[in-house]
């Protein structure tokens, strides 16, 4: 299992477009990936779960991955978040 904190830098937080980019990326990995925010934990492959988290700008999320490509999944997600999901 790999755990890491990632910061959401996008202006409006993890809204529809960055959430779409996140789910699209994570769905490529075989591992189970979860995100935790304000004590709520959701499946990172679920766009609906991600949207209802309503992650605010500047928020810190905990990402947790379990599976054969867990490290890769977390690293890729971290990089994407730092690049503001290639949106801004």
């Amino acid at each position, binding site marked *: 299992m790999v755990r890491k904190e990632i910061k959401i830098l996008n202006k409006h937080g993890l809204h529809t477009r960055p959430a779409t980019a996140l*789910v*699209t990326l994570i769905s490529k990995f075989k591992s189970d990936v979860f995100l935790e925010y304000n004590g709520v934990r959701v*499946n990172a492959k679920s766009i609906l779960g991600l949207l209802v988290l*309503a992650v605010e700008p500047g928020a810190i999320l905990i990402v947790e991955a379990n599976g054969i490509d867990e490290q890769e999944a977390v690293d890729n997600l971290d990089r994407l978040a730092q690049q503001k999901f290639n949106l801004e």
Partner: protein
Amino acid sequence: MKTIKGVKISSGVVSGPVFYFERGKFTVPKHFIREEDFDSEFERFNTAIRKSKDELTQVRDLVHNHLDEDHARIIEAQLLAVQDEEMITAVRELMIREKRNVIWAYFEVMDDYEKLLLKTLSQFFKERTADLKDIKKRVIYHLSHEKDIIQPEILKPSIIVAEKMSPGDLMHIDHNLTLGIITRYGGVDSHAGILARAFRVPYISNINMIQEIVSYSEIILDADNEMVLLDITDDIKASYESRIQDFRRHRDNIISDKVANSTKDGVPYHIYLNAGFVDEVRAMDPALIQGIGLFRTEFLCIERNSIPDESEQFHAYKAVLEKMNDLPVVFRVYDFGRDKLLAMLDLEILQEDHVFDEWGGIGFLLDNPEILKAQLRAILRASAYGNTRIMLPLVMFVDEVVRTKEILETIKSELKREGLAFGENIELGAMIETSSVLEELDELAKHVDFFSIGTNDLALFLLGSGRTTGLTKNYYHPKIFRAIDKIIKASNKAGIPVDVCGEMASDPYALIGLTAIGIRSISVSSGALAAVSDEVSKIDVQQCSLLVDSILSADDAFTIYSQLKKFYHEQLE
């Protein structure tokens, strides 16, 4: 009494109770399922998701290729949401645990997501509930075989009051129960507006006091004078009574007599119907009309917020043909301008957009052959059930017609191989509405069976004005009449028929001008049919032909307009 001013979208006068329409409010059919039915019920859900996914994928690709990346991402999000694994698991568990039918379970799960979104502090996330409603509507559409499941519960004929009305919303409302429409947002060119006019539902918009209207039990909607009357007294009601009755008669009687088939002096004349909705055609009596001169197929897409698959299209076209018995029906293949694509997706429209983008019409379809092929297959299969013609919109080059004919031939051999029936000798026509094709009319005439003049777009191309600004009377311009004259001459030379299917044909003065220069066949919307028929039967072709020279040599639109107006009042009234 109190009045509120608005903007007319569709004319008429009605009185009645108010129904407040909220988007995405459905009556959910709820029942319990037996254990042995669980698998088939859940399988229906999988099928509905798969169909929704296919539609959204096609829409996303279209938007991506023809609009922009940004809008494509919104569709991408819907695509992910419609097949969200967590959501599907939750629905499945709810079905097992509570033995609920799938629509009920699905609604509940989606409702929970909506509630969670609404609970968030950020306005930005709250607004996303609109997306969830769209997704829900799409999946429910595929889950429900009966259309009425997604209709809001209007129990008696009412005036619908809403913030906004999308074409999709309008389609799901029972026309017989909709007396009129009042909204805060909505424009004349909106597709909800086109629909309201097609079904003759009075509609006014730009009304800010929606909530106040809702508090009244009975109101008068006077769309002709662009106002809503509240707090109506018996006197006011009595003074409106005859106008309301007149409108009701006009609305119920689309046309009461057979449309005219010749002019006053016995010159044969064809008057066809423009339509875009299957329901609209169902309301017509084929014994009274001569056929459908323009069936706008893209309206099927606007109704459904996606491009229907071949089978769905086939059933729609077949229904139209069967209703029309053996009268001709001209199916115009999809005419997707950027505006129609946006309307289909029901996205907030960028108002500044130009109508004639670099794509649209047949050129766009040839760039997206899978869409064109599915549509042509559907039309050809339906052609076994009636008198079918095919028309290509916005033809720019002869080559586009040649390529379309090749595709048609390929499809015909496919259908033969598959043992599927289709009509023989299906005529193919081209719409003449761009400036570039005006230079190739003789060559074009060799490849098609008829011409049809789209005056709205022709005016845009020749005069270059936007659809929203001052289009109203610009077809009186001498350039338009000279272009139409040129088209008539080319069609006569080639021996193929020509008609006018644009708005111009239903303008009483312009119709005289068209007839004067040689038009003998027109296609107009159902609302204009009775008036146009009456006018044609009163026109004396010999008399109006005397106007030809002065029309074709006029310097400006006003000269033509005044002449035609004078002729109309002297000869026809």
